[in-house]
């Protein structure tokens, strides 16, 4: 292969290095004294999250503090990452409830299908991102953890209200 060369036509006779330098310096100085800085001072300031932000899960509870989940098994079925572990139980009245409900947040891809499919509006994704843990095991959220978390939950996209108003 030969090399193609494009020789640019530069206005060599008109350009002045000194003038270009001075205008560059003026430009940077303008930014130097400009009090508006773009960095967010993170732990003190945070940026608002979108209403549809999909973060780590929450399980909503009913009035007596029990998880709303009826262990229907829809969310473990729909979960594409296969990260929900559900063991259903049943009490004397025949009410189903989850004996074990665990979500492995490491495997989760935060698709939101579990929230969308849930008939009881029990499992929700959260508008939350501060998830640091000391161990890997800490990322398997059990039922207690899922119900005790308080961060706001994600609002799913509603076809009747596409702009989310």
């Amino acid at each position, binding site marked *: *292969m*030969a*090399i*193609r*060369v*494009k*020789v*640019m036509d*530069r206005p*060599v*006779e*008109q*350009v*002045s*290095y*000194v*003038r270009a*330098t001075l205008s*560059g*310096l003026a*430009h*940077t*100085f303008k*930014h*130097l*004294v*400009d009090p*508006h*800085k*773009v*960095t967010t*001072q993170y732990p003190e300031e945070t940026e608002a999250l979108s209403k549809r932000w999909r973060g780590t899960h929450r399980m909503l509870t009913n009035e007596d503090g029990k998880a709303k989940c009826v262990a229907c098994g829809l969310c473990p079925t729909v979960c594409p990452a296969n990260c929900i572990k559900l063991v259903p139980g049943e009490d004397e009245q025949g009410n189903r409830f989850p004996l074990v409900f665990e979500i492995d947040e490491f495997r989760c891809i935060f698709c939101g299908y579990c929230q969308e499919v849930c008939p009881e509006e029990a499992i929700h994704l959260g508008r939350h991102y501060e998830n640091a843990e000391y161990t890997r095991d800490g990322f398997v959220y059990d039922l207690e953890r899922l119900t005790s978390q308080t961060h706001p939950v994600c609002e799913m996209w509603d076809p009747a209200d596409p702009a989310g108003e």
Partner: protein
Amino acid sequence: MGPLLMTPISDNSTAFLIASAIKVLVFFGVYLVTVAMLTLAERKVSAWIQDRHGPNRTGPGGLLQPAADGLKNFMKEELSPGAGNTILFSLAPAIAFSTAMISWAVIPFAAPVPTPWGVMSLAIADLPVGFIFTLAIASLGVFGITLAGWSSNNKYSLLGGLRSSAQMISYEIAMGMSVIPVLLLAGNVTLGTIINQQVTGGWNILNLTFAFLTFLISAFAETNRLPFDLPEAESELVAGYHTEYSSMKFSMFFIAEYANMLTASGLMATLFLGGWDIPFTAWDNGEPSVLKTVLTLVSFALKTGFFLFLYMWIRWTLPRFRYDQLMSLGWRFLLPVSLGYIVLIATTLLVLQLLGIQAGVLQTGILFVLNVIVLVLMFVVFDRGRLLSPTTSKMSAAEMLRLRSLDRAGSALVPSARPESGMGD
């Protein structure tokens, strides 16, 4: 103040020794803290120019950042290249660092201070050879970088070292030449005399504006700061001469860079901005007093600070030169032009002397007008595409036409090094 007290302190040898020891200790303490603060200032200025905040977590407003950096560098693992020259590898940062500091020793940073034992000049060593000493030590600085490049046994480091030696040697000449007009005006190489001449005859930035600009450019090149930081050009040479360095040895190069900047700034303030002279008042030029010393120190610090800021400002504005541009700027522009300028200033001074015009407002005025003419000529007429030029300007017109016509024909097939028969199989 009695005439007895006006004798210089050097007449009393014990007092002189003690005073010098104190000066050295205090000065290097302040100097090193300033250098540390400069690393913070650099990061702050760069951040502000890029619309960021800069380091602001360690201590109030980030003030402890240099201490944190230093601590980190002390605790890091120190590596040295297996096939390198270990002795020179360790020696190089020390050379770079110490030469940067030594040259500061001759710069007077405030008006002389009166003490009960006589007047103490506020330069660590009030050497009679003054400026020559600075030049000599500055040329030693190149050994630090070159040896670092060579002893690392790394091709990038070596290239960085080579570039640095070539660059510093070329610009040293331009630097020396651009100061000769200053020495012509002062009639002496002692920095104290140069300051005194500026006190009476006006600052050299007015007398010798053009020499100031050439000195500024050479000083940037001498300290390897952008746009002349080819020895460490990250985009081509990884990190140039300090690629193999880690931990505190790497830090030493960093300190050396800022120490060099500080020295060069102090030198520029001394040579061209009247040193510690306070403008628009003759008060600071009379009898020595402590208040005067403090105020002149502030004045000197402000001037030096201005140049330090200029260094940073330019660093975050201009891109790096190409190597051939750097060399041609040094040898084909700065050197001949400063030689011509020496002749011009020498002739003017001779003519002024024959006309009987002494140092003062009139002389400064005449020299300033002369400088304005030279500057206009330089930057309006000669700068156009000549000061720094694209590679194409080095092509002959015929060659350029040939290349252009090839491109227009849509098949600019520049014959490659490979034989024709090798193509297409």
